């Protein structure tokens, strides 16, 4: 049964470390003890299923708040969800959340002095199709300051949340934009050692996704952990 096949370990250096001193909030929140190895069991190799009937898709963030168009540059964000074996991950829930065009989240904790847009909540949800593809229409999020260090600014980014087929494939990440000069200074983006792994967090401008007289297109492909080739050892 494929459900009992464990997922491969992450490639060294391709995931950030809990202890990332340049990102100040990690200092009191990262574990000091070594993680306990856990050979995967049915608890880890299975996971929740979300159905579009119960969790309705909302793919257009530019109008999904009030019905009136939000302010800002419309963009299309689309891509494919696949696993490390190169297989499409179909029917998986993809959720995003983000700041508005001015760099402000519609969240009581965000005290940045930039205007809210009453027509932009900044949250959306879709399900990947049979080929693993997903697509959102949204507003390009603004950069914003944060208190990590003097003159700290988060690069433009969109938060992504995915589940995949198992508890072990849960992924929360952030998509960045090509050519953003703030990437070089951002401790969260820089917190992953492998430069190619970082680069894969940057969407590609895509003329084929771009729609004439409407919106620029950005492609962001997402890779979830893949299962080992063989069932786990007894």
């Amino acid at each position, binding site marked *: 049964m494929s459900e009992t096949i464990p997922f491969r370990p992450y490639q060294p250096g391709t995931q950030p470390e809990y202890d990332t001193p340049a990102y100040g909030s990690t200092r009191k929140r990262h574990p*000091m003890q070594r993680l306990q190895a856990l050979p995967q069991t049915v608890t880890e190799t*299975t996971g929740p299923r979300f159905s579009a009937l119960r969790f309705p898709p909302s793919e257009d963030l530019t109008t999904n708040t009030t019905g009136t168009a939000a302010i800002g540059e419309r963009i299309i964000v689309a891509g494919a969800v696949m696993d490390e074996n190169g297989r499409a991950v179909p029917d998986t829930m993809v959720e995003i959340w983000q700041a508005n065009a001015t760099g402000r989240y519609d969240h009581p904790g965000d005290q940045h002095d930039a205007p809210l847009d009453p027509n932009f909540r900044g949250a959306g949800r879709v399900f990947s199709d049979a080929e693993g593809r997903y697509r959102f229409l949204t507003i390009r999020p603004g950069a914003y300051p944060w208190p990590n260090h003097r003159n700290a600014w988060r690069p433009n980014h969109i938060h992504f949340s995915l589940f995949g087929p198992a508890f072990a494939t849960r992924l929360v990440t952030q998509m960045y934009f090509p050519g953003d000069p703030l990437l070089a200074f951002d401790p969260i983006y820089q917190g992953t050692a492998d430069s190619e792994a970082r680069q894969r967090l940057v969407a590609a401008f895509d003329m084929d996704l771009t729609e004439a007289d409407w919106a620029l297109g950005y492609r962001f492909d997402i890779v979830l952990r893949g299962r080992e080739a063989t069932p786990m050892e007894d």
Partner: protein
Amino acid sequence: MPIATASQTVGPFWHLLEDPTWADLTRFGAIGEKLTLTGTVIDGDGAPCTDACVEIWQADPPASDSFPGFGRSRTDARGEYRFVTIRPGPVPGRGNALQAPHIAICVMARGLMKGLVSRAYFHGEELNETDPLLTSIEQAARRDTLIAKPADPGVWRLDIRLQGDGETVFLDL
């Protein structure tokens, strides 16, 4: 072969996704012994983490139309998460092993570059003595960080200490 996308922190504003009803795994009419699982998420200074996203998953009872098996709870102003779910039974481990009843936990928060995975077991379960994960943890005090304790009737408490004294055992999957 493609390589898995890097995790990035969930940050402090993940509540834009939040649906508070997700913390009640019995909301679709699940049948079984209801329980509340609650606790405080605590940082290395002993301060409550008030912006965390705590998720749970249990393989038993099996997910169905009436039981999602998955829940998500914010931590509140006191750092407390709170789930209502159905008490799990034992599930198979590797080989012939049987795992004691448990609920998988994933904590995400500002300051966590990736989710921290742990488990909640239940105090007083006989199978805890032979559970493959619990018995693989050498120090009894550390093992205890995974065992929820009865509080009020039907309420089980498990604090999650991210760092320092009493640090929760976190798992490498």
